């Protein structure tokens, strides 16, 4: 049994002007203990919404269906009530833009200790000791626990945010664009730290990013999201070397590589609007391999190779399999 199983997750948002936005449309994936999993996609594809749902951190305008099984138990079954006990104990998170993840008027140490005290893991002196240890572990001198967030640099704050996520020794660490606002050198430091911590603590890591190379370097497996659904998932190696969905292939082709020599090409067009019903394949208008069947029938995510799945009709036509 996997540590985490997401089955057919749908998320809708009520729009102020009426109607709904179908932000996540049937996302399904699994996560094994200690695995490093990447969730890749461009802005608005639903990747952040998906992992916020894993912690039940959706706004009141949202409604969900589907299952999020943590050790076999559906934590979304009764909404807020069933998901709340798992927060930070089993699943912790490093948020996008760590600048604002801390309360500006409270000391860093106090904020890291907060979940420990809340979940009865440690209190007072013991909590302070553990906070010091965690800070040292992420490369911050323990005495800085007394500082306020604004006294930290961006990289330091992100380290502190990671230390905070580890406060209750969770099984799963969700990292939402953890390096987006950071400089390349600091980004490399943070990614290295995440990998090392995942190994040390036996954490399963879910890394959400728009940056393919980061996933390629950090994750064992990944899923590519487009228009609210996973269009392809599998080992990162397979995604790069043998993509089975045109979007995956084109996305890699649009990403310049330092030493690469191939043509870098953008994908024409833009993703479909999610406040309308999508008929057929959502990627069809931008796809270079679309054919008749893509217009009327929406492809489902189907296994295409060992551990690899894709949602593309081309895979049903053997001779049409893209290289």
């Amino acid at each position, binding site marked *: 049994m996997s540590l985490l199983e997401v089955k*057919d997750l*749908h998320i*809708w948002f009520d729009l102020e002007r009426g109607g709904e936005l*179908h932000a996540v*449309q*049937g996302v399904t994936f699994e996560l094994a203990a200690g695995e490093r999993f990447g969730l890749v996609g461009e802005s608005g594809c639903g990747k952040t919404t998906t992992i916020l749902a894993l912690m*039940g*951190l*959706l*706004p*009141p*305008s*949202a*409604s*969900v*269906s*589907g299952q999020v099984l943590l050790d076999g138990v559906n934590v*979304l*079954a*009764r*909404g*807020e009530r069933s998901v709340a006990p798992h927060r930070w104990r089993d699943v912790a998170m490093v948020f996008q833009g760590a600048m604002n993840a801390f309360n500006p008027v409270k000391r860093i140490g106090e904020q890291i200790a907060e979940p420990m005290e809340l979940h009865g893991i440690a209190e007072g002196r013991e909590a302070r000791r553990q906070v010091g240890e965690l800070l040292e572990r992420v490369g911050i001198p323990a005495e800085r626990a007394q500082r306020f967030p604004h006294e930290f640099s961006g990289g330091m704050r992100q380290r502190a945010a990671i230390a905070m996520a580890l406060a209750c020794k969770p099984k799963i660490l969700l990292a939402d664009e953890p390096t987006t606002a950071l400089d390349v050198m600091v980004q490399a430091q943070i990614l290295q730290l995440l990998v090392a911590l995942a190994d040390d603590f036996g954490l399963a890591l879910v890394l959400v990013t728009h940056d393919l190379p980061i996933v390629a370097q950090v994750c064992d497996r990944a899923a590519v999201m487009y228009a609210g659904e996973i269009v392809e998932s599998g080992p990162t190696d397979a995604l790069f070397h043998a993509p089975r969905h045109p979007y995956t292939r084109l996305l890699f082709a649009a990403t310049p590589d330092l030493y690469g020599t191939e043509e870098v090409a953008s994908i*024409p*067009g*833009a993703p*479909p*609007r999610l406040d309308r*019903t*999508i008929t057929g394949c959502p990627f069809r*208008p*931008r796809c270079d391999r679309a054919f008749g069947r893509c217009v009327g029938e*929406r492809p489902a995510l189907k296994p295409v190779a060992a551990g690899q799945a894709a949602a593309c009709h081309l895979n049903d036509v053997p001779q049409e399999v893209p290289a």
Partner: protein
Amino acid sequence: MTGTAPVLADEQDLEAPPPRRGSFVWSVIKGQPQATIGALVLLAFVLVALFAPVIAPYDPREKVGDVFEAPSSEHWLGLDDGGFDMLSLMIYGARVSLIVGFAAALVAMLIGGTVGLLSGYFGGKTDTVLMRMTDYFIVIPDIPLMLVVAAIWGRSLTNIILIIGVIYWTTTARVIRSQVLSVRERVYVQRTRALGAGHWRILSRHVLPQVAPLLVAITVLSVAVAIFAETAIAFLGLGDPTLISWGKLIENAFSRSAISVDAWWAIVPPGLAVVAVVLACTMLGRSLEDALNPRLRVGHLSVRRFRVREVEGKSL
């Protein structure tokens, strides 16, 4: 020049409805019940003030009955200490109260808007000087100053309007300044500057239109403040003695002991009228302000939670 193939346009969904940009103020008034009510009430009072001679049943300066006569079918709100018809007094009183309210708010808008715009846009020394000046005005207690100035400089309507306007521009200046500070840093303003556009162009085409809705919101709110100020001045006996205003009516009732003879009708209506107008301004002004503040729209904590939906059938 070498001809190159045109780069493909993003085929974005271009079927979006054609741009419809009614004024911001109008859209808030239409869209928010609070603002709609506020605007309607305000409009009603303005109409009453405008058509006072047509609506008022009696001449407010004509003695039509006994002192403090109770409300009756002829005099819906009874008579005041001079035997004048309260309803007619109220209707005519709306004129002065609203004139003071709107005119003083206009004065405050002009001073405060200019100070805020210049201070925020030019920054540096201009900002320091103007903001220090604003700070001084803020610490002077308003009513005592009005008292002193009205007592010493005379109590004509113009004077009262000017005094109120000159005292209450500080809020406008500060709010507008902070908004301009952020607009000034917007990239499109920097881009226009890099283009070679002058200050006047940037201020009038880019900055002012951007802060205008906020300016309207604060001005609506200062109408309320100005009406308050007028009742205070009148109550302390420093209003123009020849004019009827709601403040003056409250003062009359108080100083001529309406309370001791239980003539509630002489004292409750003018207060309620002030409450209605002030409430209307506050509701309208606050709705506008709130609509302009995107920080009020997100909430990570709410009484309501996300819902769990039963799945009907398979995925779409």
